[in-house]
């Protein structure tokens, strides 16, 4: 940090990203949103626009039902969001084929995220990154600690695997992943803060951008994440959906703490 005329000046640099996550059900509705003063709280397009206006750095859209039948609904939704929101969009949920990824990118997604399908067949990560470029392939990792070791979980966290999280992130990096979206199942839903330990470990393990997810409950949780780990982004859902931490307040506060924030 430079001191210019006694005022702390942040050296121009890459900003830490604040990323709201929208859960989509049946390709159209957003689960668990409770905004006051939002006429159509369940409309993901309205919500995406609202977050973009408020300064979200990216958006993650997660199709939590992710059935083949819903695919066309999801595609038209992504198209409509792309028309109105011009910040980067990542789409995840049930993605396991090149043709599906091609369709999502064509509909305006900037990145796609894979999770269970990559665990099932790791070569998928290589195929996707070779076809579309690493920069658009996010590997989402759901991690949970058991007797001091972190293991990857699949199928929305319902199923444990014997794969150690720290090994897995190295593997997907070598296969061409462009980013890791790390969700700590231990922290998720607690509102007690991000899982700093595993985030720190993962971010040291790979040379990829790491987004931490799960556990955000107050502004201080974001600052401790960015000051004590190499995470380059923070993802949260309910604190934004329920307006517990309004995005503008969060970003203003982090800026005042001299963190690199847009």
């Amino acid at each position, binding site marked *: 940090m430079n001191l210019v005329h006694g005022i702390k000046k942040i050296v121009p640099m890459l900003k830490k990203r604040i990323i709201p996550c929208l859960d989509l059900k049946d390709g159209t509705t957003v689960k668990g949103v409770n905004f006051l003063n939002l006429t159509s709280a369940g409309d993901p397009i309205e919500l995406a626009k609202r977050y973009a206006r408020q300064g979200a750095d990216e958006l993650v859209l997660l199709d939590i039902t992710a059935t083949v039948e819903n695919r066309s609904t999801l595609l038209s939704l992504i198209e409509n969001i792309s028309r109105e929101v*011009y910040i980067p969009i990542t789409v995840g949920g049930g993605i396991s084929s090149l043709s599906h990824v091609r369709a999502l990118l064509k509909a*305006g*997604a900037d990145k796609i995220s894979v999770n269970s399908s990559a665990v099932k067949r790791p070569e998928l990560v290589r195929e996707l990154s070779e076809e579309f470029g690493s*920069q658009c392939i996010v590997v989402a990792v759901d991690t949970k600690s058991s007797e001091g070791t972190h293991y990857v979980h699949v199928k929305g966290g319902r199923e444990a695997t014997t794969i150690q999280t720290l090994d897995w992130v190295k593997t997907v990096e070598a296969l061409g992943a462009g980013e890791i979206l790390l969700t700590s199942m231990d922290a998720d839903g607690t509102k007690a803060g991000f899982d700093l330990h595993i985030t720190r470990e993962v971010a040291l393990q790979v*040379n*990829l951008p*790491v987004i931490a997810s799960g556990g955000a409950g107050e502004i201080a949780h974001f600052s401790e994440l960015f000051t004590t780990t190499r995470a380059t982004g923070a993802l949260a859902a309910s604190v934004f959906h329920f307006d517990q931490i309004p995005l503008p307040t969060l970003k203003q506060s982090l800026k005042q703490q001299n963190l690199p924030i847009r």
Partner: protein
Amino acid sequence: MIAIVDYGAGNVFSVQCALERLGANSVLTKDPEVLLKAEKVLFPGVGHAKAAMEALKENGLDQVLKELSVPILGICLGMQLMCLRTEEGDTQGLGIFPVEVRNFPSGLPVPHMGWNSLEALSGPLFKGIAKETDFYFVHSFYAEPSPYTTATTEYNELFSAALEKDNYFAVQFHPEKSGAEGEKLLQNFLKL
């Protein structure tokens, strides 16, 4: 009519949407005739440099791009392909800008992904855009600073965030994904 170069690389839908919002008619094309008749040309792209260069050559677009006299804007990989050579797959570029494209040194998270600020802005693309404005980047290779640089960004290394030479313009970031300021830059390009 604005022509968007179609060489099968990357996601052009966002670029089309951005032009639509700005009220500009655009056509996605790989037809050299259409490109040569366009008022302006956009050359976007994400993906791998080697594959992209091969796709351009397949339709003779590499020659056409070098012959254009109207304003052309390269975005991201488009910009890198307009340079002399890129370390990505050791690929020969179009050579419009006599600039080398290099890999970021190890030790940093790569891709350089997210919002980063621009410094040393000059030229018509940045009219009305303040110094230190953040734009959205996602790339693993960067163009070195050169006499053609019209904006720089720092990610450990100082690199060219934008280049300009005659009717050729290029930006490393994604104006179509950079909110209102990105839209302003595209509007500046449309006004050229």
